[in-house]
């Protein structure tokens, strides 16, 4: 890591005070690497499948497979990159927020806001490029390892397979550029820092973030309404034709985008509700109030995790609901090979979209640490006033649980709704009995994926407390209170 930093951060980046050593950039590099590696492995996997299908004398070359796998790969990589750029934007917004005084001082000394913002964005580009290159290498190594295992352990041959292809550079470039874009979007706040902030009091200026843009709220509402409308229409059309899913699908995409845009509308009420569950003790209140201190930041941090959970649950519920219909249509006993096929497909899809959850989790872990790091003085004050180190740990743990629990609940609800809508749109026109009009699909939540998702988020919450706890308990009250 240090070698990478030394090579990749030219002195210019440090003029603005931002370097790759900045807290938060490590996670950005990691996220870019995971997204790129995911794309590389996915592209290699489809190349492998396509090569082994072509080698099969009974099937021969399949254009349909190429087209379908191409679309699927683009969609999956697209969603992963999307989630990654939300997380990146949020990381950079948090970094900038913790640096307001320093930025203000530089502004006071004559630096322009635009050049400050360019510095931040450039750091994003550098982090994106470093991550993309690491992901390219890592993904290629993983692909070679995977092919070796498949060929040697399972005897599946893929003649003529090329794993190192120019096309792999496309996702790498996309990731590097979206990381840059995410950093740019997240650094918007730099523009609002006035030189006066350098002279201001040490008290945090505002609990509510002021950037509630109306355009964004309107866009979220419009997109959300049309998305839900299309979803509903798709479900209704699906009662008579399986093509309902073609209407429901864009509805799903639109409402999902609305969710990302309108996170600041959806998440704060949920966070408030869950915060209330913790009770009224001082420790619980300190933890719960924190998630609402920067509602916009917490919401975006949570929404990435919501998306990961929702995507996994969507495939889980869609698959199980579809199997439910299969069983019913077969009169109680579905053909085992069909059930197995469905289960296999949804399991693979769940594993693939889980990458989004991993990316979001990295973001949560990193941003909680950033938040605590930026509040060292507050923890020092609390320690001086008599917060024991056990209580410090509890505050940090509750903070992580708060965010993760809110994301989990919203994600499961949304995932179930999306999964059911998809299954209903596809299967609504299946006639269970010759004279039946249409089929109402019951949403089935399969227990094993649900347990896995809950367990994974519990792990995220626990991992997310490790670094912040260390920061919060190791800060000596004297040192933190002495610094200005």
């Amino acid at each position, binding site marked *: 890591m240090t070698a990478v930093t030394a090579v990749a951060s030219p002195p210019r980046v440090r003029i603005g005070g931002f370097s790759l050593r900045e807290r938060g950039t490590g996670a950005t590099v990691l996220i870019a690497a995971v997204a790129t590696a995911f794309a590389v492995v996915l592209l290699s996997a489809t190349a492998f499948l396509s090569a082994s299908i072509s080698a099969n004398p009974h099937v021969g070359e399949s254009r349909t497979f190429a087209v379908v796998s191409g679309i699927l790969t683009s969609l999956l990589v697209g969603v992963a990159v999307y989630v990654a750029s939300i997380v990146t934007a949020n990381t950079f917004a948090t970094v900038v927020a913790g640096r307001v005084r320093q930025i203000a001082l530089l502004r006071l000394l004559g630096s322009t806001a635009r050049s400050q913002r360019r510095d931040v964005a450039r750091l994003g580009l550098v982090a994106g490029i470093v991550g993309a290159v690491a992901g390219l290498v890592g993904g290629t190594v993983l692909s070679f390892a995977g092919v070796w295992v498949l060929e040697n352990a399972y005897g599946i041959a893929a003649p003529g397979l090329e794993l190192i292809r120019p096309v792999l550079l496309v996702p790498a470039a996309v990731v590097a550029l979206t990381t840059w874009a995410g950093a740019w979007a997240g650094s918007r706040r730099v523009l609002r820092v006035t030189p006066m902030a350098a002279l201001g009091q040490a008290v945090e200026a505002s609990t509510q973030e002021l950037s509630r843009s109306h355009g964004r709220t309107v866009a979220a509402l419009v997109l959300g309404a049309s998305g839900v409308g299309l979803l509903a229409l798709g479900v209704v059309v699906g009662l008579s034709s399986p093509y309902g899913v073609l209407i429901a699908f864009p509805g799903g995409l639109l409402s999902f985008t609305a969710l990302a845009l309108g996170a600041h509308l959806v998440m704060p009420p949920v966070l408030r509700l869950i915060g209330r569950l913790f009770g009224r*003790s*001082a420790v619980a209140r300190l933890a719960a109030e924190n998630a609402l201190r920067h509602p916009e930041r917490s919401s975006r941090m949570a929404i990435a995790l919501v998306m990961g959970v929702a995507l996994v649950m969507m495939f889980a519920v869609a698959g199980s609901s579809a199997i439910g219909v299969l069983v019913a249509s077969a009169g109680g006993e579905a053909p085992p090979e069909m059930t197995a096929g469905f289960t296999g497909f949804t399991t693979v899809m769940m594993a693939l979209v889980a990458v989004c959850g991993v990316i979001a989790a990295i973001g949560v872990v990193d941003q909680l640490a950033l938040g605590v790091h930026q509040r060292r003085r507050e923890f020092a004050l609390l320690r001086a006033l008599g917060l024991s*180190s*056990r209580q410090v740990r509890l505050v940090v743990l509750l903070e992580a649980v708060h965010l993760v629990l809110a994301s989990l609940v919203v994600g499961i609800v949304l995932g179930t709704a999306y999964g059911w809508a998809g299954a209903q749109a596809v299967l609504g026109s299946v006639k269970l009995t010759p004279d039946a009009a249409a089929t109402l699909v019951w949403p089935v939540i399969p227990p094993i994926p649900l347990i896995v998702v809950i367990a994974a988020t519990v792990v995220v919450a626990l991992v997310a407390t490790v670094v912040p706890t260390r920061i919060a308990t190791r800060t000596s009250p004297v040192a933190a*209170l002495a610094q200005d």
Partner: protein
Amino acid sequence: MDDSTTPPPPAARVAHLTKTYGSTDNPVRALDDVSLSIGRGEFTAIMGPSGSGKSTLMHVMAALDAPTSGRVWLGETEITGLGDTELTLLRRRRIGFVFQAFNLVPTLDVRGNIALPIELDGRAPTALERARIDGLVESLGLANRLTHRPHELSGGQQQRVAIARALATAPDLVFADEPTGNLDSRSGAEVLRLLQTASREHGQSIAMVTHDPIAASHADRVVHLADGRVVADTRGQSAEEISAFMTARELRATEAAS
């Protein structure tokens, strides 16, 4: 020894206190064999130029930092050698703090900030504490600010909230670290008057660290520190006298150096 002439035990006491920072090759001696008692019910100012060791002394006495050698008592309790949890409980229950800046928790409103040390104890305020808090809120003029957050208050108001918090538990000793350092002279004078009142009318023991002669002149007693040692211990000095004393010392130090 006659019991009737025994003075009450001091609010806090340190004996042969030494604190060194830095490496063993190049140690910086912040405190150099300091012995001192803080009288019960008194308002004591600890004065000195920056680097005199006054902040270090306060941190050690307030159980925020450990001395290199020497012993520290709060009331009858010796705090040197106590574990982190015991020190935490001690600070929570028996010590009050007013800092120069960043005194309040930004996510809690005024009421939450005042009651914080009590609530950290995992209990509701007792009837006595409630009455005391109500009285403080009233006399500090915070009654219509109880639901405000710190960022909605002026610097002087924030400092008054911090004072209410420090006095709410009627602690053995209140430490005030440059409490007027960030305030304009009017709010500063008001804060000093409030501390003085707490001491005179309610017998609250207060130790205030400051480098400002005017702030120190509000105290009953002024302890002067320089280069980690107690160099003078005076009572009833005016701001001018304190200022003159400091200037004289500085002059002598400059002459000695040249």
